[in-house]
């Protein structure tokens, strides 16, 4: 290395990085054979590429095996039949045909959309409201942030099991609390109509804290001069919220909306642990159906077909999300 250094310094053409300037990605990177350079120079570029390859090896291996190949294989799986013993056979669209023959599929799709709609209805405005109120609080701000985030720290399985206890019709906290104001008792998870709202309340409780902190950060970034100006113009407090605070954080609002949709489409733990999809399939979700096809029925083709459809929907939403976050990543 040291000999190459000495030579390199005197040859500006081959010294890769002038102060602070980024090397153009393909400049120094072209295979050394493309250049007419002496031996040590040639080996320097090779050595750098080799070192880079060694450093990238863990990532390449793990992404290759556990990310790129499975993604590709998901697409293949949808058109194959496999029983893990014999080699997979191509079956065309028949997995999709069998998927659409399943009467549970429309139920699972409808439930997932209903879960998403309910979680947005409850879970989207709530953290905005809490953040708006919290950002005006002068005392206990730090303590409140910790308390708000506390449920996010609880492992989802524990929070779901905890709420399952709360929803117990006889000994659960939910009916006892509602009983104090003369409501109920409700059957909650055993009732076809109340099971889904029950899941949504649990998911909202577990997830709201993260959103509140993100909105608080966004609200703290709103220029105070805008509020000053609005106040001088005589804008009331609600109008300042509606015309300044919310529009100023609209980018973050939109991102959180998309993130919530992506998360809700993949709902699994809540229905799986709380209701096992019941009562009478009232809470079975798309992801639960994939799980059921693959790991209970051993029907990997059908699971693959549904995975591909879910992937297309989520891919569209994520692409939108990444497009919108780009300004953040760049800065």
């Amino acid at each position, binding site marked *: 290395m040291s000999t190459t250094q000495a030579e390199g310094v005197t040859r500006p053409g081959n010294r890769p990085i002038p102060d602070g300037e980024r090397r153009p990605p393909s400049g120094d990177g072209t295979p050394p054979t493309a250049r007419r350079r002496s031996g040590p120079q040639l080996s320097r570029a090779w050595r750098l590429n080799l070192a880079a390859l060694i450093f990238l090896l863990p*990532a390449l291996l793990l992404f290759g095996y556990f990310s790129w190949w499975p993604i590709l294989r998901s697409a293949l799986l949808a058109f194959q039949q496999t029983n893990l013993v014999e080699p997979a056979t191509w079956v065309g669209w028949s997995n999709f045909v069998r998927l659409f023959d399943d009467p549970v599929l429309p139920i699972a799709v409808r439930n997932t959309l209903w879960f998403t709609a309910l979680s947005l209805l409850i879970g989207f405005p709530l953290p905005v409201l809490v953040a708006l109120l919290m950002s005006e609080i002068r005392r206990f701000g730090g303590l409140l942030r910790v308390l708000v985030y506390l449920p996010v720290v609880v492992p989802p399985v524990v929070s779901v099991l905890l709420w399952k206890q*709360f929803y117990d019709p006889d000994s659960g906290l939910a009916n006892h609390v509602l009983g104090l104001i003369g409501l109920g008792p409700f059957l909650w998870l055993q009732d076809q109509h109340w099971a889904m709202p029950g899941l949504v309340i649990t998911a909202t409780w577990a997830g709201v804290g993260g959103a509140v902190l993100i909105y608080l950060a966004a609200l703290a970034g709103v220029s105070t001069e805008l509020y000053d100006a609005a106040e001088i113009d005589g804008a009331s407090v609600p109008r300042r919220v509606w015309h300044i605070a919310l529009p100023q954080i609209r980018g973050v609002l939109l991102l959180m909306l998309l993130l919530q949709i992506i998360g809700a489409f993949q709902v699994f733990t809540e229905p799986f642990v709380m209701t096992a999809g019941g009562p009478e399939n009232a809470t079975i979700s798309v992801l639960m159906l994939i799980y059921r096809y693959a790991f209970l029925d051993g029907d990997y083709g059908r699971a693959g077909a549904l995975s591909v459809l879910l992937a297309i929907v989520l891919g569209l939403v994520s692409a939108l999300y990444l497009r919108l976050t780009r300004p953040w990543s760049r800065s």
Partner: protein
Amino acid sequence: MSARADRGVLSSADRRRTPVRLWSGGMQTVLVLAVVVAGAGPLYWTVKSAISATPDLLAHPLSLWPEKFEWHNLSDAWSTLQIGHYLVNTAVLVGGSWLTQLLVATTAGYALSVLRPWFGRVVYGGILATLFLPGTVSMVALYLTVLNVPGLGVSLTDTPLAVWLPAGAHAFNILLAKQFFDAIPRELFEAAEVDGAGSFRVFWRIVLPLSGPLLAVISLLSVMTAWKDFLWPLIVITDPERQPLAVALPRLANSADQALLLAGMFIAIVPPLLIFVVFQRYIVRGVGFTGLKG
């Protein structure tokens, strides 16, 4: 409140007006009560119930104090429900996922940001592309891969590797690492090179020692995520003896005594809670940043 925000929606003039004072005072009182009840209430209830007797628990779920302290619930859960055993399983899975993610993120980030080989752009593009697809959609294919690793012909199921290795393929960490390393002045690397340091020495002696904040962020994210993980371990670790606490708890819930189960749930909350309490400053501040991209 940061120093520059001497006002929010409300100005100090507003705060002196009586109707505003009443309104905001009232709303804030409601908010503080709601946050305390909703945030800490269920956790307090878990602790209370974990040290109550089951009949007491079922008869008076609303009572704020255990009728009689049953501290032995915790040790009973630890031994009869084998909570301690599952906790060790969880710790093994979390620890390995953490180390794998640190290794992959720092090495790949270094290669992509500092060494910049000619194939770097393609690899980085391939890694970032996986951000578009949530892992759940390739879960079934990933399971089949883990069941019979191509070219090796071995199954990783029921071993910690089935959790550790896929955890390493986490694009967001590499994005963080590359961006962090991009901000290190290039002169440092040039000076080291002039001094005769090779790529490995630069990585070990210059890049890693400067990476404290990066390692902290990746560590917090990976440990918290791995501790919460449920679906993937449920799929690949079917042997009850090897399951982490998150997978074991729902199974135990079907048969275990309620107070003991709650004691087990309480034990499952303690480690992430401790991490949160110790690092809450960084987490609470960091969520605004990482949450946007995560």
